[in-house]
C-alpha cells in the first residue's frame, strides 16, 4: 500500500488530471474511509520502544495465519492428537509453519512483556489511560492462557503435566475453577474444550480487546515521552512536537513485521518446535514452558497453592498499578517508589525463573 496515497492530502489538480491509481484510490477511500488512519502521531512514537505493542500485534497476526494452517492438519482427539502433530512435523512445510507458530508465541509474549515494561517506565498508564492499561493487562493474562492451552494441545507429557497442574489449580479455586473440573462436560475430552478455547475463545477475546486498545490509543492519543516537553495538558505531547501520520507508523511497523517474520522463519528451520512423548498420568518428568518457571519455583517451595497466589498477586498488582501509583510524574527519576518496587519484583521473578532452570524436575501431583 502506498503511504503517499494515504498520507497526502487531496491533490489540488483537476479531477480529470489525476492518475488512474489516484482515482481508484479515491473511489475506494470514499467508501471505506481508509485515509482516516492518517491521523497525526507525535514523532517520538516512531521509535522502536514505542512500536513494541505493534510488534506484539504483528506476532499475533502471524500466530493467526500459521494457526489457521495448522488447524487443517491437527486432530484435537486424545488418541491421535500427538500423532497428528508428528505428521505435521514429518512434512517440511508443516514443520516450518508449526515452528513459526511456536516461535511467534514466544515473540508475542516477549513483545507484550517489553511493551508492558515500556509503558510502565514512561508512565503511560497514568491518567487518562488507566482503562487502556487494564485492557493491556487483560490481554497479557489471555496471552498467558493461550500459551498454556497451546502447550496442552500438542498432547505430550509436558502438555499433560501442565494440564494436571491446572486441574489441581481449578480444584483449589473451587467455583472459579469449574471449567477445569473433570466433571464439567465430563463426556467431552478436555483437550477438545481447550482446543476450542485456543482457536476461538482466547484469540476472539484478544481481538476484541486489541481493537479497543487501538481505539483508546487514538482517543487518548499517544502518551507523551517523559523526557520531552509536554503540552499544556500534561497528559499529551506538546503541540509543537512534529507529527507523522499514523499510516507512516504502520509502514514502519510493517518493516519490523517483515524482519520479525524472517527471524522467526530462521528459528523455525534451525530450531523446530519440540514434541515430547505420549502423555501419561501419574508421573512428572518435564518442566513447563519458561514463562511459567517462576510460579513453579514457588510450587517447589510452598506447594501447589503458591502458583495460584503468585500469579494472582502478580496480575492484581499489575491491574491495581494505576490506582496505587498516584504520582503524576512520568519520568522514572521522579518516581522512586514505583521504580524500586518494580525493580524488586523484577529481580524476584528473574531469580525464581533461574532457580527453576537449574532445579531438577520434581513430582508435585
Amino acid at each position: 500500500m502506498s503511504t503517499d496515497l494515504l498520507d497526502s492530502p487531496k491533490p489540488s489538480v483537476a479531477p480529470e488530471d489525476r492518475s488512474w491509481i489516484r482515482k481508484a484510490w479515491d473511489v475506494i477511500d470514499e467508501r471505506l474511509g481508509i485515509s482516516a488512519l492518517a491521523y497525526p502521531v507525535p514523532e517520538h512514537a516512531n521509535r522502536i520502544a514505542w512500536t513494541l505493542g505493534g510488534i506484539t500485534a504483528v506476532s499475533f497476526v502471524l500466530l493467526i495465519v500459521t494457526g489457521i494452517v495448522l488447524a487443517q492438519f491437527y486432530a484435537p482427539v486424545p488418541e491421535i492428537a500427538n500423532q497428528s502433530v508428528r505428521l505435521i512435523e514429518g512434512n517440511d512445510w508443516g514443520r516450518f509453519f508449526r515452528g513459526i507458530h511456536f516461535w511467534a508465541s514466544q515473540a508475542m509474549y516477549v513483545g507484550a512483556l517489553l511493551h508492558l515494561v515500556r509503558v510502565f517506565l514512561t508512565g503511560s498508564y497514568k491518567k487518562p489511560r488507566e482503562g487502556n492499561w487494564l485492557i493491556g493487562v487483560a490481554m497479557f493474562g489471555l496471552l498467558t492462557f493461550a500459551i498454556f492451552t497451546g502447550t496442552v494441545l500438542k498432547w505430550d507429557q509436558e502438555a499433560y503435566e501442565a494440564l494436571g497442574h491446572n486441574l489441581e489449580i481449578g480444584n483449589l479455586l473451587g467455583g472459579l475453577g469449574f471449567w477445569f473440573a473433570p466433571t464439567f462436560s465430563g463426556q467431552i475430552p478436555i483437550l477438545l474444550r481447550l482446543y476450542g478455547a485456543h482457536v476461538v475463545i482466547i484469540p476472539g477475546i484478544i481481538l476484541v480487546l486489541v481493537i479497543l486498545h487501538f481505539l483508546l490509543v487514538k482517543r487518548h492519543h499517544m502518551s507523551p515521552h517523559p523526557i520531552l516537553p509536554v503540552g499544556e495538558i500534561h497528559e499529551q505531547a506538546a503541540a509543537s512536537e512534529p507529527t507523522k501520520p499514523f499510516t507512516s507508523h504502520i509502514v514502519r511497523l510493517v518493516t519490523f513485521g517483515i524482519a520479525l517474520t524472517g527471524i522467526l522463519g530462521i528459528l523455525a528451520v534451525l530450531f523446530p518446535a519440540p514434541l515430547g512423548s505420549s502423555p501419561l498420568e501419574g508421573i512428572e518428568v518435564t518442566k513447563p514452558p519458561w514463562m511459567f518457571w517462576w510460579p513453579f519455583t514457588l510450587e517447589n517451595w510452598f506447594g501447589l497453592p503458591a502458583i495460584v497466589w503468585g500469579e494472582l498477586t502478580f496480575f492484581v498488582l499489575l491491574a491495581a498499578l494505576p490506582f496505587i501509583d498516584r504520582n503524576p510524574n512520568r519520568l522514572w527519576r521522579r518516581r522512586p517508589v514505583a521504580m524500586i518496587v518494580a525493580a524488586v519484583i523484577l529481580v524476584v521473578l528473574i531469580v525464581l525463573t533461574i532457580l527453576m532452570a537449574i532445579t531438577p524436575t520434581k513430582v508435585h501431583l
Partner: protein
Amino acid sequence: MRRLQHFSGVNHRTGRPPKRTGLGRLGRLALTSVVAAVMGVFLVGQPALADGGQSASEGYVIVQQALSYLVNDPGKSGTTEALMKVKEALAAKDQDGVDVSTLEEAGAALKAGDAAAGRTLLQDSITEAVTALKPAIGVQTGTTTMLAPLPPRGALTPVDWILLGLSVIFAAIGVALASMLRPRESLRQLGLDIEAADARLAHSSPAAPNGRN
C-alpha cells in the same frame, strides 16, 4: 525564552494540588471487591485431587509409566525408574489386560540392560488392555502406544534450505527498511526542536507554554 515548567502534580493555574478523582475511589472499591470475591471462592474451594481422571494404580497404566521413563530418559536412571514401575505393576491388584509373563520378560530384559527389548516387551504386555480402551473422555490421555519424544532435527532438506534462504532475505529486507525509515533525529534533538518551536511561539504570542513530565 520562557523557562519550561516542571510538572510537580500541582495545578499551574490555581496553585492547588489536583483534586482526587472518583476513579481512584472506584479503583480501590473494585480492587477490594475482587479480593473479597477471590477470598470467598477460596473459602468454598475443594481440596485438590491427585487423580488425573484415569486411575494411576491400574496395572497397564503403571506399565505405560515404565515405558514413559524409558523413552524420556534413555540413560541408566530411566531404566532404574522403569524397573521400579515394572515391579509395581507386577504387584498391582488390578492387572486386567496385562500379560504378566511378558511383563516379567520385560523386567528381565531391563535388568540385563537391554532397554530396546524391554520397551518392546512392555508395550506387548499391555496390548489387550489398550485394545479394550474406550474413546477418551474428560482428562483421560487416550494413550495406547508410548511414542518417544521427537528427536532433534537432522540435516536440512532442500525445502528447509529454500525456507531458510527466504527467511534470511525477509529478515535482511525488514531490517534494511526499518533502518531506512527510522527517525533521523535523536530524542535529545527532538526535545531541543520542540523547545525552540515553543520559544518562537511564546515570542509571537503570550499563550501558555508547554511543560515537562
